């Protein structure tokens, strides 16, 4: 969250001359956020540095005496292992499909929430409901729905004894469906905020000029809420990239449905191979940083825009 708060100060282009008042306001801002930064450093920086340090060793929790320094060996093992790349592919597929579908459905929901005339609160509550459910619970619900014994999905669609969780892509389909069901409301909420920022006059002016509804959406609304869309995509991409709970509950990573977070979990917690696991964890962290950097630098996402202070 600190990134969001400090972004206006870092805005590069067309920076106006800072007044004395502006300077003292900025100082106050830094002062006010300092305690949060200190806490963040304590709870995130220390484990991070420790993980980087441990990733340089071949080290098992259950064989502490055999700890030995291997340098970047663990990284070489991870990066040359087909399992790592298979998990990268799985994670990438899940991220790409969920974010793309959520963006489309979420935009539709945002429009409905924005335009709805009566029963506004009911409609918004209904749309946001899945987001209020704990992921583990929703994952169990979806797992049982598609299960051979307790499920109703096969019965509804006449699929007989089709075992959803016995194949890689069919398992991933259920995981992705559950993920979409659960987090589309989040995307629609961010997009709703963006929609609310588009000045009504623009749309009205376009109507007067004879633009159709589709043209207004494409040429007026979407360009004006580009910032909100990019923020929604960035947040959801980072979120989806770290997916863990749905996979853990539904397949436990079987049928090659393991994701990067799951790989880290299994090396570190299950195998207690701390060194190798931390190396994978650090790689996961670096990939998250890379995604964030690409979005912020590459697509010039200005996080301050999500607050509406342009």
């Amino acid at each position, binding site marked *: 969250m600190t990134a969001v708060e400090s972004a206006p100060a870092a805005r590069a282009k067309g920076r106006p001359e800072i007044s004395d008042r502006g300077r003292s306001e900025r100082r106050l801002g830094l002062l006010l956020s300092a305690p949060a930064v200190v806490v963040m450093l304590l709870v995130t920086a220390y484990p991070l540095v420790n993980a980087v340090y441990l990733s340089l060793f*071949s080290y098992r*929790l*259950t*064989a*502490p005496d055999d700890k030995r320094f*291997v340098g970047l*060996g*663990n990284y070489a*093992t*991870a990066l040359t*292992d087909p*399992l*790592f790349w298979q998990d990268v592919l799985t994670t990438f597929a899940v991220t790409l499909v969920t974010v793309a579908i959520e963006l489309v459905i979420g935009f539709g929901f945002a429009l409905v929430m924005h335009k709805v005339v009566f029963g506004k609160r009911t409609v918004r509550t209904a749309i946001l409901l899945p987001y209020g459910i704990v992921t583990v619970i929703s994952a169990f619900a979806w797992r049982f729905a598609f299960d*051979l*014994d307790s499920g109703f999905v096969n019965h509804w669609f006449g699929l007989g*004894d089709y*075992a959803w*969780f*016995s194949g890689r892509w069919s398992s991933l389909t259920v995981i992705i469906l559950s993920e979409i069901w659960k987090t589309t409301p989040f995307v629609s909420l961010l997009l709703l905020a963006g929609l609310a920022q588009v000045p009504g006059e623009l749309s009205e002016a376009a109507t007067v000029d004879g633009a159709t509804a589709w043209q207004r959406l494409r040429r007026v609304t979407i360009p004006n809420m580009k910032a909100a869309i990019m923020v929604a995509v960035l947040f959801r991409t980072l979120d989806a990239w770290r997916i863990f709970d749905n996979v853990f509950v539904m397949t*436990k990573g*079987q*049928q090659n449905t393991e994701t990067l977070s799951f*790989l880290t979990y*299994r*090396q570190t*917690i*299950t*195998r*207690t*191979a701390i*060194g*190798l696991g931390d190396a*994978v964890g650090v790689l996961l962290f670096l990939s998250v940083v890379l995604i964030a950097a690409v979005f912020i630098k590459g697509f010039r996402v200005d996080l301050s825009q999500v607050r509406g202070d342009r």
Partner: protein
Amino acid sequence: MERTRKRYRGPARHARGAVALALLASGLAACGGSGGTPTLRWYINPDDGGQAKLAASCSAASGGRYKIETSVLPTDATQQREQLVRRLAAKDGGLDIMSLDPVFVPEAADAGFLRPFPASEAGQFTQGVFPAAVQSSTWKGRLVAAPFWANTQILWYRKSVAQKAGVNPNAPDFTWDKMIDAALRTNTTVGVQGNKYEGYMVWVNALVESAGGHVMTQVEKGSDASIDIDSPAGKAAATIISKLARSKAASPSLSTDDEEKARSLLNGSRGGFMVNWGYIWRAENGDAKDGVIDKSIPGDLGWAPYPGVNAGQKGKPPFGGIELGIGNFGKYKDTLAVDAVKCITSAENQKKYMIDSGNPAARPEVFSDPEVVKEFPMAGLIRDSIDAAAPRPLTPYYTDVSGAIQSRWHPPASVNPDTTPHKTDVFIHQVLRDQALL
């Protein structure tokens, strides 16, 4: 607290204050509770309350010297280990006794997590106990856990199906091949545990052992142990798995089947044969009584020894159960915890636990007890099966070995007798040396 309340009057503040007070009170209670009787904490695997009952009766029998409190671990053996290892690696002094799956004993012992039993104490835990249970509780020549109960799988089948197929599963030459063919002839199934979990490793290991081989030997060498799965026995095991998995006799959800899924397969319209643990008898009778399954099923249920791989060579059933370990960091590890373990593992309590929970005792003498025989008509078969059972590799790297096999042998339909055992051999070596992810 008073001043805060005066300054901010609002429901939220009150609620927060109440929560804080409650937390404080519970914290104090936790600190002050140990005033009288010393408390031993026993981490148990979930059962139907049998271990909690033993804890209560042993507490009572101690005459106020100690009180055993139980904490339940997760259902899945792998996750039980995860939690225990995390606590023990952090030197948790509040872990006095633990119910350990036999395969995790070497790892815990090698890391110094378990308090070994000196020779003076060991005798009473090992005399008159199944050899596989003692072997599984021993690490580098020292007894590090006390056998509590022992488990094994037998072959369960529908008598009507066996009759229709014209086979006798109790015949000494009944093999996996004959069983799969019998299921195919009658359009029924052979239920096994094919999910990617420990249960699948149980099956693979039992097949390799039944074929006269081992997954690995010289386990005391740790990561340099000899990996022996690339052998004729490994190939024989792979042949059976791939034959079943690719045939109509396999469960439609074989690659995700666990013990309970296999049981519901046996109860279904295509139920025929199944290898599974001894709890089946209780579970089937309970379900029939509750109307969950047809009332006629328990009467049609037959049992036989674990099938062999080669004709003329008896099958070696899997070995399971629970051993009791004493945490090496507890306050009472040399005194009260030892007494408590003695009480829990006595022949009398093992019999009580067997009747209570359906889990077989670790002492053969219990199986000839008239009460036990009345409850479990197949008690004799279970005793002989545990006696013949072969443990899974007793190595401190068990999780890695099991995980590597699951990774290369799953899904069952992908197993290729010509390549899988060799690939597994190479992979286990790499995993043990941190040269591959698992």
